[in-house]
């Protein structure tokens, strides 16, 4: 077989289990696709090819042995995976897209990654990201930008742009991302793939390099809701190494049943259809909602009246948390150090030289929002308005099971378009931020294409810990549509 890299995770695992091909063959097919497209797309910061080949070989040995004695095999045995370069994998450098961590070797592995390794995955490498996940385009990486496989003049979204682009380009069936304000869902939308941001506290953050600790969540990308649900169900669940990890049972997500959505109540908030948004995004999402209705769901309007405040709330709270989290990069215990005679001067120079422009901007913004005299007006007020946003969702979920919205106001924008205007860049996140502020789960998946051939994405949000409803709805949609099966020209 020559097109193993085109398989979804479910298809690949089925083929492996039936002995149709080996993990080594599957992994080599992915590596070959990466070799062919990586020079043009730049989705990886660090590739782990040797390690991937030995993991694949070991997976094949394990499977052969299990076949001999009839024992069960781990659920993801031999499945290739790419990992965003902000999740720690012991023994592989973790740069977070930053120059300051160019040579950082994490001494331990993130829980989310470890659970997937225990389930048998083969790690192809660490993918590109905006520095410390701060960005909406993957242009803020110190290692160069990632290119959108659908149009290399455009950005893949961000900050998990490397993972989203790699999945779209058929370099890997699945990949890990992280989402603090939309960093899984927005690149999933821009690249035409499916991505989950789980409920806050659902997937352990242990080993995820911190950005905004009250917002950060570990998510996953795939080309189908089924694939993403599979990864999610293995990563999710309590971890004593993360104090915010919740001890809530993870339901078995069965997606093989009938595609009917009878009984599902879908809410559409008018606040997410704003003037200035791309008409094809609006019409694409509205058609997708009609498709959900055709599958048996009932659709009604809901209100999330504080939506317009999510952006200023987020861009005070996240930078405030970032300014505290990134205080650790002082050049002493890890990272590049700029030497000086005095201690303070080491800090100033190390941080001034090591951080990129956006990271410094957010540290400055957060420091200001927390500083004496401004704390109550900015950070304090933002935390109160966050409560209002969270209550909007609680109220909406009294009458609906899911909320359907666009993922972003536009399809992927051109590289460089927002480089000199941070506020315009932040506005790309306007529909993804509220989900993080309320801590609810969100799923993005493709529901069409615009005239330029760029994917349009829809976002489904659900109540806390009800990722299963989102997966069920998206899976039903994908059973009767084929947007998610389209392949970018360069990846064919």
């Amino acid at each position: 077989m020559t097109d193993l890299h085109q398989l979804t995770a479910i298809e690949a695992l089925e083929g492996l289990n039936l002995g149709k091909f080996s993990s080594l063959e599957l992994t080599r097919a992915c590596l070959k696709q990466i070799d062919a497209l990586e020079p043009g797309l730049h989705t990886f910061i660090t590739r782990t090819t040797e390690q991937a080949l030995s993991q694949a070989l070991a997976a094949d040995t394990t499977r052969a042995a299990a076949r001999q004695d009839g024992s069960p095999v781990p659920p993801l045995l031999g499945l290739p995976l790419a990992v965003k370069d902000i999740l720690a994998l012991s023994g592989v450098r973790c740069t977070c897209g930053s120059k300051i961590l160019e040579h950082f070797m994490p001494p331990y592995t993130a829980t989310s990654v470890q659970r997937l390794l225990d389930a048998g995955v083969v790690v192809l490498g660490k993918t590109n990201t905006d520095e410390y996940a701060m960005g909406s385009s993957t242009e803020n990486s110190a290692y160069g930008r990632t290119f959108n496989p659908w149009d290399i003049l455009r950005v893949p979204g961000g900050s998990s742009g490397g993972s989203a682009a790699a999945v779209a380009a058929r370099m890997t069936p699945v990949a890990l991302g992280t989402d603090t304000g939309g960093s899984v869902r927005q690149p999933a939308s821009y690249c035409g793939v499916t991505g989950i941001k789980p409920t806050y506290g659902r997937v352990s953050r242990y080993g995820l390099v911190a950005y905004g600790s009250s917002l950060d969540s570990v998510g996953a990308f795939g080309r189908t809701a089924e694939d993403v649900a599979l990864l999610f169900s293995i990563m999710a669940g309590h971890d004593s190494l993360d104090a915010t990890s919740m001890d809530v049972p993870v339901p078995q997500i069965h997606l093989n049943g009938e595609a009917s959505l009878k009984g599902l109540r879908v809410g559409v908030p008018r606040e997410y259809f704003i003037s200035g948004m791309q008409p094809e995004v609006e019409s694409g999402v509205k058609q997708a909602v009609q498709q959900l209705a055709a599958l048996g769901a009932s659709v009604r309007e809901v209100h999330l009246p504080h939506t317009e405040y999510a952006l200023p709330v987020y861009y005070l709270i996240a930078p405030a948390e970032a300014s505290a989290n990134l205080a650790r990069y002082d050049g002493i215990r890890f990272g590049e150090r700029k030497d000086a005679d005095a201690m303070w001067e080491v800090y100033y120079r190390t941080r001034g030289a090591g951080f990129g422009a956006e990271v410094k901007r957010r540290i400055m913004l957060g420091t200001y929002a927390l500083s004496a005299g401004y704390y109550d007006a900015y950070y304090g007020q933002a935390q109160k308005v966050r409560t209002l946003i969270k209550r909007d969702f609680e109220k909406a979920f009294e009458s609906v099971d899911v909320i359907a919205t666009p993922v972003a106001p536009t399809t992927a924008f051109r590289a460089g378009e927002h480089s000199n205007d941070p506020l315009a860049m932040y506005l790309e996140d306007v529909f993804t931020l509220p989900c993080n502020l309320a801590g609810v789960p969100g799923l993005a998946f493709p529901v069409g294409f615009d005239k330029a051939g760029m994917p349009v994405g829809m976002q489904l949000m659900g109540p806390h810990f009800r990722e299963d409803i989102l997966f069920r709805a998206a899976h039903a949609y994908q059973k009767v549509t084929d947007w998610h099966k389209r392949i970018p020209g360069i990846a064919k």
Partner: protein
Amino acid sequence: MTLTLTEVEHIAELARLKLTPAEKELYRQQLSAILEYAARLQKLDTSGIPPTASVLPPRSVLREDEPRPGLPVEDVLQNASQTENQQFRVPPVLE
């Protein structure tokens, strides 16, 4: 909302960031624009609204204080730019 250069320098000092004159001026303009946008929050009446410290229900995450091994010292020191006698080496803090 317009920040002065002095305010920008004060924030950079609090954040321990060495900025070039060009960076200071750029951040002065950009942060002013962002804070101007954020000013719309001031118009909302939030009296009686508690701040959200966590989106999760409050609960105890305490555990027994049982000693257990930490990471090996070599692993912890491997990323430091300067070490000496199994410790991090830093410039003098006190004169």
